[in-house]
């Protein structure tokens, strides 16, 4: 019995952390965020690919590394820790996981493995369609609008979900497709919207189980990203409190500040094991993997929201300014919370996944 990271996993994470420490320091994050160096995102992606991150979830048979969801979650955690703008979620995590299970998608998988396919994610439909949004498929063509496309920039394909939880691959050059970039609070992520007008799309799967697992994977990755970001905020708060003096003593010696930090640590520490557990269950395709992914993202979203606030408070006025850049982490955690299901939505999905309630019994919009 072992519920811990293997040596290889520790090494993988160390390598990613080191790369990001070198290549994605705060100044670079700022340059990406203010639009002055948009190329950083893809530069980081290529550097991560040099470490093999692009191949993680591609099966060995398709020239990948054949590693696990847990490995992917560790990478996501590192990205969150560094608030790195690298578009890994689509091309490095969700697309390879899905394509590896789609019969006849060998070509796409090979393109992924060769680094020739970069995939944005238009999956919002899976978490409920807002007014003016919604994607409908008919005769192999898509119509409608997807509002919150992740890894939006410079992609060579979009993975699109329709209202029936079917997944498609769409060429950015396809007829009737238009898109625009959308600004969000999180400038470390490229986000946009896509509009479809009789846009031809390649159906990847109609298998609800595969769709559910793909979504679970994306949610685990977002949870892991928040885990990383929250860990960094906590460490930063503790370090700041040790350095910052008021009333002739480090504020870290005030019981109020200590307890704020202790509460953050106590809430956050179990989240690490929770991400591992969720990833492991998905790797093992356990029956409760989907429910566990929902809970993991919901729980970490709530812990992260409180932690981001508290860590900012420990930093005092400095935490509110742009000077320390702490807000990049605050906003990253906020972005992950809202993306692909808010906590209340996810908890309801977890209840349905366990059969606690009937999916159709309640006329509840999102809860």
């Amino acid at each position, binding site marked *: 019995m072992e519920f811990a990271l293997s040596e290889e996993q520790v090494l993988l994470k160390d390598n990613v952390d080191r790369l990001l420490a070198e290549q994605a320091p705060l100044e670079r994050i700022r340059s990406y965020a203010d639009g002055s160096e948009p190329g950083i995102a893809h530069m980081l992606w290529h550097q991560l690919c040099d470490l093999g991150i692009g191949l993680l979830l591609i099966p060995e048979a398709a020239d990948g590394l054949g590693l696990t969801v847990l490995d992917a979650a560790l990478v996501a955690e590192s990205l969150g820790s560094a608030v790195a703008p690298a578009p890994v979620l689509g091309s490095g995590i969700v697309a390879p996981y899905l394509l590896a299970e789609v019969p006849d998608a060998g070509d796409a998988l090979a393109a992924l493995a060769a680094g020739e396919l970069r995939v944005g994610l238009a999956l919002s439909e899976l978490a409920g369609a807002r007014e003016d949004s919604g994607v409908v498929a008919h005769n192999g063509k898509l119509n409608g609008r997807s509002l919150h496309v992740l890894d939006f920039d410079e992609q060579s394909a979009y993975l699109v979900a329709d209202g029936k939880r079917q997944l498609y691959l769409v060429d950015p050059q396809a007829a009737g497709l238009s898109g625009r970039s959308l*600004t969000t*609070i999180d400038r470390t992520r490229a986000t946009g919207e896509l509009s479809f007008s009789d846009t031809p799309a390649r159906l990847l799967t109609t298998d609800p189980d595969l769709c559910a697992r793909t979504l679970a994977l994306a949610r685990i990755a977002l949870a892991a990203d928040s885990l990383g970001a929250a860990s960094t905020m906590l460490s930063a708060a503790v370090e700041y409190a040790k350095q910052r003096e008021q009333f002739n003593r480090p*504020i870290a010696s005030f019981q109020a500040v200590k307890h704020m930090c202790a509460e953050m640590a106590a809430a956050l520490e179990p989240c690490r094991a929770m991400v591992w557990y969720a990833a492991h269950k998905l790797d093992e395709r356990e029956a409760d993997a989907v429910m566990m992914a929902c809970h993991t993202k919901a729980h970490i979203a709530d812990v992260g929201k409180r932690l981001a606030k508290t860590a900012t408070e420990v930093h*005092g006025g400095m935490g509110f300014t*742009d000077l320390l850049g702490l807000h990049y982490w605050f906003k990253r955690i906020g972005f992950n919370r*809202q993306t692909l299901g808010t906590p*209340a939505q996810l908890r309801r999905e977890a209840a349905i996944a366990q059969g606690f309630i009937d999916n159709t019994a309640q006329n509840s*919009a999102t809860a």
Partner: protein
Amino acid sequence: MDLNYGPEYDAFRAELRSFLDTHGHEAPKGNNNPKAPASLAWQRKLIEHGYTARTIPSAYGGAGREPDILKARIIAEEFARARVAAGLGGQGISMLVPTLLEMGTEEQRVRFIEPTIRGEMIWCQGYSEPGAGSDLAALKTRAELDGDEWVINGQKIWTSTAHIADWMFCLVRTEPEAPKHEGISFLLLEMATPGLEVRPLVDMTGSANFNEVFFTDVRVPKDQIVGRRGEGWRVANSILGNERDSLGNPNATLTRFHALKALMERETVDGQRLIDDPVLLDRLMAVQGKVLAMSANDLRVLSAKVNKTSGGGANDTRLARMIIKLEGTELRHELEGLAIDVLGELGLAYGDNPLLRDGGSWQAQYMYFLGLIIGGGTSQIQKNIISERGLGMPKEPKFPTARS
């Protein structure tokens, strides 16, 4: 228990409404240049009618009326209702003018009050420093007397209006050998003075709501001091309490609550209104409960001010007043955060995003109110104050090596 203001006030309100009907169109719109001729003219008209600078003696350019808390509130309510620009605020008018009336020399009053209330002289406040936040009295910006001038060196931060201000009132250390609280003086200086540099301080909202101000051998005439040397802490504290009261204002929170409710009626997921989502509705109603509690608390505090109650027991409102900043800012932050959750992924929209709801105010205010939780005395400082002054609990034992 009588929530009616009475006939005198009803008449005052009617007169004010008629004024607003007649003249409201003259008011400046939006965030115009505060010194635009129309703005200054409007301010002068409001003073004339006693709708701003109401209690400032006419000798100093004010309206010279008796203090009347209810009339002040009616003025605030009616200008808000009519969506007409009310009289100017800002730290010069809300903080410096009362300070000068209390502690200034006659010469200072004559020189500064009239242009300030007329909007011709804009002030900023130089109190906080990078190393002196919660522990404000630890401030290090120093002023040394050189002949007839103070020479100031150091740095201030959180000076909200420094970029548009003509003058600054600030706290500086003039007696380095004195105990921490007794070595501070309160100076007035022109922003145009050589050696003074203002840098905008961008915050997490992406805007520069504040500034940093750097002093390098900034020379200020000796008589631009309010109170005596070393009295600055007392001068500043004579009005500091006023600032806190305005943070976490329940009326503004009520307005935001209504906006949130409207948002939930408007927005849908899968075709269903979000207000019909029981879980979100429960959170909305929990927020409304808190808003109502704070509104009631506000009425109680207002009543005690109006009636100058200082009774003990249930009519003692000191604690009720002391908790407003802590509870009010936390509640507002919670409310804004709920709106973000309500909006789901759309709640992330910001800046130039065309999908923005309500001008992006939910995210901006969510962050801004986190700033207010921290600013004006952090929540931790508020809890110290409540426990010590409100509940009579002892101060923490002093750290043995502390200077003071």
